[in-house]
């Protein structure tokens, strides 16, 4: 799509087709001849991996939907029937449930890649924003999908998350009832979640199309963060996508699938929660309600706000912080004031980025723990109970850092930091000493 097309139809039929619907030309220009920076490392393979996982989820999901019954008294047993009596149902169900987790692992690595190499900066702001839209859609899809097996964690997770909406002032209760289709999570909720869970992946596929379109206008970023040069010298900066990156992405996809298969076939349930093998029971609340692991950092941010802020009570504050943690990604391209894309040439910010990754992992840890549990013990109180540094405080500290990274560190660093000297071009970076 960038640059003139090099496709030449070879047969009579393809010439005829090319004059009417140049779809082969589109494929050729996008995935065969597409000029790609020659220095992409393995962090750039997660886009292809994500495309594969979107397909795995859609195909396995369509088969599951043929056997699943979205009814509050039959959903749980219908999932067990898939696992027990449907031919290869145990495998398809395991691929779908673990596939969601591996989808999120890949999307998080893809996003951290973008954050480290400045992939959100001009001229790729729209590309980045579309990515955040996909991420939001993925979260909604995964959340509703987790409700469908109608286990204890499905039901109570749905209860906790939908109740958050009720924290909104004035309209919260009305919106919550509208989402539920009743006065609690029940049959109507399950049925509409099933419908939406089937719809949203196709919306994701559509936005992925836009995401790839927006990628193919400016082309890929790259580890040194330099633009591909204009004109003939640009050819020395790039390689055609095929065969160079089809084979490299292909290798990465297979290695990733091996890790995936290890989970699907040898530990299909370790990423889930034992309570979800107990059928949903509105009269019995589990001891700990936790979301799926990929939501834990946001769960920690939600629970970090335990104090009223002026007219905003703690519950609403937590909800705003949680949604704000995602919303802030939309404006990130304008918060980072540095024109240097790659963190390789930003000696200070690079460290702040590494701490940001650790903060996200730490928030995930906090989300999995009871806020009153102790990170480390500092002594005993008069009654002999252990006292120390609570996970609540740890989560609050990390939440502060999460927001400070975007709102304080990135805006200021662009002004005060002196970037390292960058190579003259991608070609120079490849041929020169910079090979890290």
């Amino acid at each position, binding site marked *: 799509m960038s640059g003139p097309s090099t496709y030449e139809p070879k047969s009579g039929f393809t010439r005829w087709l090319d004059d009417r619907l140049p779809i082969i030309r589109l494929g050729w220009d996008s995935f065969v001849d597409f000029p790609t920076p*020659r*220095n992409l*490392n*393995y*962090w750039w*393979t997660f886009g292809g991996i994500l495309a594969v996982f979107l397909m795995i989820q859609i195909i396995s999901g369509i088969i599951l939907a043929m056997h699943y019954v979205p009814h509050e008294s039959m959903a749980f*047993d219908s999932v*067990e029937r898939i*696992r*027990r009596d449907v031919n290869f149902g*145990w*495998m398809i169900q*395991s691929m779908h449930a673990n596939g969601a*987790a*591996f989808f999120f*692992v*890949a999307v998080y*690595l893809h996003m951290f890649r973008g954050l480290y190499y400045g992939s959100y900066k001009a001229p790729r702001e729209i590309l980045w924003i579309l990515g955040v839209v996909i991420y939001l859609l993925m979260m909604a899809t995964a959340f509703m999908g987790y409700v469908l097996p109608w286990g204890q964690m499905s039901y109570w997770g749905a209860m906790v998350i939908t109740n958050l909406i009720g924290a909104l002032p004035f309209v919260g209760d009305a919106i919550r009832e509208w989402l539920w289709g009743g006065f609690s999570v029940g049959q109507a909720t399950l049925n509409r979640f099933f419908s939406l869970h089937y719809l949203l992946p196709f919306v994701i596929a559509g936005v992925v199309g836009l995401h790839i379109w927006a990628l193919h206008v400016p082309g890929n970023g790259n580890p040194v963060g330099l633009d591909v040069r204009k004109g003939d010298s640009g050819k020395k900066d790039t*390689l055609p996508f095929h*065969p*160079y990156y089809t*084979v*490299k992405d*292909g*290798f*990465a996809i*297979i*290695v*990733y*699938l*091996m*890790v995936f*298969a*290890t*989970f*699907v*076939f*040898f530990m*299909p*349930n*370790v*990423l889930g*929660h*034992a*309570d979800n*093998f*107990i059928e949903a029971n509105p009269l019995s609340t589990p*001891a*700990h309600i*936790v979301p799926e*692991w990929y939501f*834990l950092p946001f769960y920690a941010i939600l629970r970090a706000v335990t104090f009223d802020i002026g007219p905003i009570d703690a519950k609403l504050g937590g909800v705003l912080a949680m949604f704000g943690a995602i919303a802030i990604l939309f404006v990130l391209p304008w918060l980072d004031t540095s024109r240097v894309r790659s963190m390789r040439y930003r000696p200070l910010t690079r460290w702040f980025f590494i701490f940001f990754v650790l903060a996200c*992992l730490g928030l*995930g*840890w906090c989300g*999995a*723990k009871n806020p009153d549990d102790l990170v480390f013990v500092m002594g005993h109180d008069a009654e002999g109970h252990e006292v120390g540094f609570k996970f609540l405080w740890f989560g609050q500290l990390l939440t502060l850092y999460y927001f400070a990274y975007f709102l304080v560190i990135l805006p200021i660093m662009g002004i005060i930091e002196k970037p390292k000297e960058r190579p003259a071009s991608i070609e120079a970076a*490849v*041929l020169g000493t910079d090979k890290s």
Partner: protein
Amino acid sequence: MKMVHIIAAGLAALGLTATASALEGDAHAPEKREWIFSGPFGTYADGDHGERYQLQRGLQVYQEVCASCHSLDLISFRNLGQAAGPFWDERFENPNDNTVVMQIAANYQIWDGPNDDGDMFQRPGIPADYFPAPFENEQMARAANAGALPPDLSLIVKARSHGADYIYALLTGYGEAPEGTDLSPGQYYNEYFTGGAIAMAAPISFDGQVEYADGTEATVEQMAEDVTVFLAWASDPHMEARKSMGLMVLLYLFVFAILVYLAYRQVWANVEH
């Protein structure tokens, strides 16, 4: 090498697993045991010709001990004769034809109907029937058990953290309550149960409680282990097919990965990058 990054991604996933499973109650953590089905090659087979004697003994313990209070709703008699089941026999590819399974099913009386007169009636079971529940409804189960509801056992191993280790620990973990423990009437002390007070009396309490058909000595530990293995099978009846297919898939992907890696080296051989 840059491969390290991809491996790091896998390890990150494993690390998150550890976090997610770190959520436990305050009960004593069960000891980790080596099971016949543990590991990537573990199966339920313990006989010289692939027989599954331990599953058969575990079924016997379920029938003679557990079944008086606990249902097994998701298991039908035919499941006992399907591949990797307790009475899997390659002569009967269709488990409904398995003579042992037919015999076990016929020993149960199953409610059926209505017949042409509109009456419900009882008939001997067939392989397609499911294990009948000991109580007709939850209220009846609670009334017979001092208000407590004996859970269905079909998924019990997957529905408890630590799985089989927990079930075994619970079955063998009864003891004297420590000083100061409040036990209501009809409650018993078990250090592996959250809170310590459990409404189930020690179900397996003396050696020889079951007389094994295969002559194995029925110690308390043996019975607890056998029934735990049986319940693990009931939770996950396709485990053997899952593992054997997993090995094939990994082998295939491994060979495929090597070939694609060699192709990658070939394609990029003359390109500086």
